[in-house]
């Protein structure tokens, strides 16, 4: 009896306020979609970062016979200069930052080059002597690459230092900006959703002030009076969250996986699995948002 009565009340309430119920659903769906996108984007950025940073190397190229850098004024790198670099890598200031390093001779560089540019005409005129020998350094923490790189820049016998991380800095600055943007929008839309739920409940309470007045007089409990309103808000927000989840999963599948993944052939993209992980978060946030907003509104406008 009770449950059936409460459910009827909810149905009547939602139907009477159909237009505003729909707007609650839409605003909740959009705000939660932004929230979900923010979460997925964050995940994508983290994934990409670990993927790319794993590859990050600092390469110290040594002077060849024809190098023109100032630090190569003495001509081709000498064994003493090589020893100095190795000593620095193993026992020097930057040694704790280095995970491992390998020496790559001109011949090894040449072989790698041939593999990398297999079939290209550029390989035909190239000799091993034209390529520089180098130390390839893997770092404990890729974020520290600039410290290591600057240590070797300008050292005698070093022609140039290549810090791969610098390539990614711009990319990550952009991605972080985009994530912040998604969060910002999600925040604003969530505020809008919360206020809209509050307004809806006020309106619903106003529409049913006669019933509420009678319920109070005949001694209906506070819980019983407020429950239908709260459930109405939660019901609408849950539908919004379900829609947002659907959009998000669809978006990940169609846009990220099929379109971006198919077109640019890059790995490490977020998939529907990641999107499904976000779904419970969206549902929870939606329900909490509506529940808390209802509670506060009911405390303020529906005293029993």
């Amino acid at each position, binding site marked *: *009896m*009770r449950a059936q*009565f409460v459910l009827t009340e909810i149905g009547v309430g939602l139907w009477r306020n159909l237009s505003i119920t729909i707007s609650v659903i839409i605003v909740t769906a959009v705000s939660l979609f932004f929230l979900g996108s923010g979460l997925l984007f964050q995940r994508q950025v983290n994934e990409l970062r670990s993927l790319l940073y794993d590859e990050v190397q600092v390469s110290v190229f040594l002077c060849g016979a024809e190098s023109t850098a100032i630090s190569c004024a003495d001509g081709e790198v000498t064994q003493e200069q090589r020893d100095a670099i190795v000593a620095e890598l193993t026992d020097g200031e930057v040694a704790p930052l280095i995970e491992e390093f390998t020496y790559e001779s001109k011949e090894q560089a040449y072989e790698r080059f041939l593999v990398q540019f297999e079939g290209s005409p550029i390989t035909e005129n190239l000799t091993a002597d034209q390529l520089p020998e180098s130390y390839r350094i893997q770092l404990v923490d890729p974020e520290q690459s600039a410290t290591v790189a600057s240590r070797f820049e300008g050292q005698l016998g070093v022609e140039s230092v290549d810090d791969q991380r610098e390539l990614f800095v711009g990319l990550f600055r952009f991605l972080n900006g985009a994530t912040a943007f998604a969060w910002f929008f999600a925040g604003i839309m969530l505020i809008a959703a919360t206020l809209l739920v509050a307004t809806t409940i006020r309106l619903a309470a106003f529409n049913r002030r*006669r*019933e509420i*007045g*009678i*319920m*109070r*007089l*005949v*001694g*209906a*409990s*506070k819980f*019983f*009076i407020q429950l239908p309103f709260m459930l109405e808000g939660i019901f609408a927000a849950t539908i919004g969250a379900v829609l947002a989840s659907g959009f998000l999963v669809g978006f990940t599948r169609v846009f990220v996986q099929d379109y971006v993944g198919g077109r640019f052939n890059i790995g490490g993209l977020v998939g529907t699995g990641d999107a499904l992980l976000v779904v419970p978060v969206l549902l929870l946030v939606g329900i909490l948002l509506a529940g808390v907003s209802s509670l506060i509104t009911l405390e303020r406008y529906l005293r*029993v």
Partner: protein
Amino acid sequence: MIRFDNVTKVYKAKQRAALDNVTVNIDRGEFVFLVGASGSGKSSFLRLCLKEEKANSGTVHVAGRDLAKLASWKVPRFRRQMGVVFQDFRLLPNKSAGENIAFALQVIGKPKHVIDRTVPEVLQLVGLDGKADRRPDELSGGEQQRVAIARAFVNRPAILLADEPTGNLDPTTSVGIMKLLDRINKTGTTVVMATHDDEMVDQMRKRVIQLEEGVIIRDQARGVYGAAT
């Protein structure tokens, strides 16, 4: 049943007290008319009985409880011992007479079989046999007030408060409502009725408490409406 001890009620916006140091006692089973001009404090008296308002000073005891000490979560249960009737009936226009009465039972969680049994009983009691399916707009004013009384009485309250129940009704219809309230009173329910209806009060010869500017100026066992003026 209802006891006010030195009760004063002042509303924030008003300078004068709505009730000024009122002390009165109403016993179980009494029928009391509360008379006085508009703004004399009749409605405040009823609202204090329901714990719709809190007294600024003094104590209000209703049905054996000190209302100042009644926790707010216990108020709904307390109100189930009270029935209230208003001048404007306050029926739900989209529900039939029977549904209006059933609503009062549904919202306090009464099971369906109890409701199905009780509603026809109470409709018969108020003389609305066979009109359970009529909506308020298909009923006369007197019949609507009978539905409202049925709704107030359906829980067999210990106390029935009526705020100008005949205020919107013609004299003939009012007599019927009065007789109904009298009958309810005879079942043991304490009835407190605020009214302007002097003829009614004069006819009934019940206890009359007269308020003027928040002060009791007369409390007469078998009174008439205008004796003190």
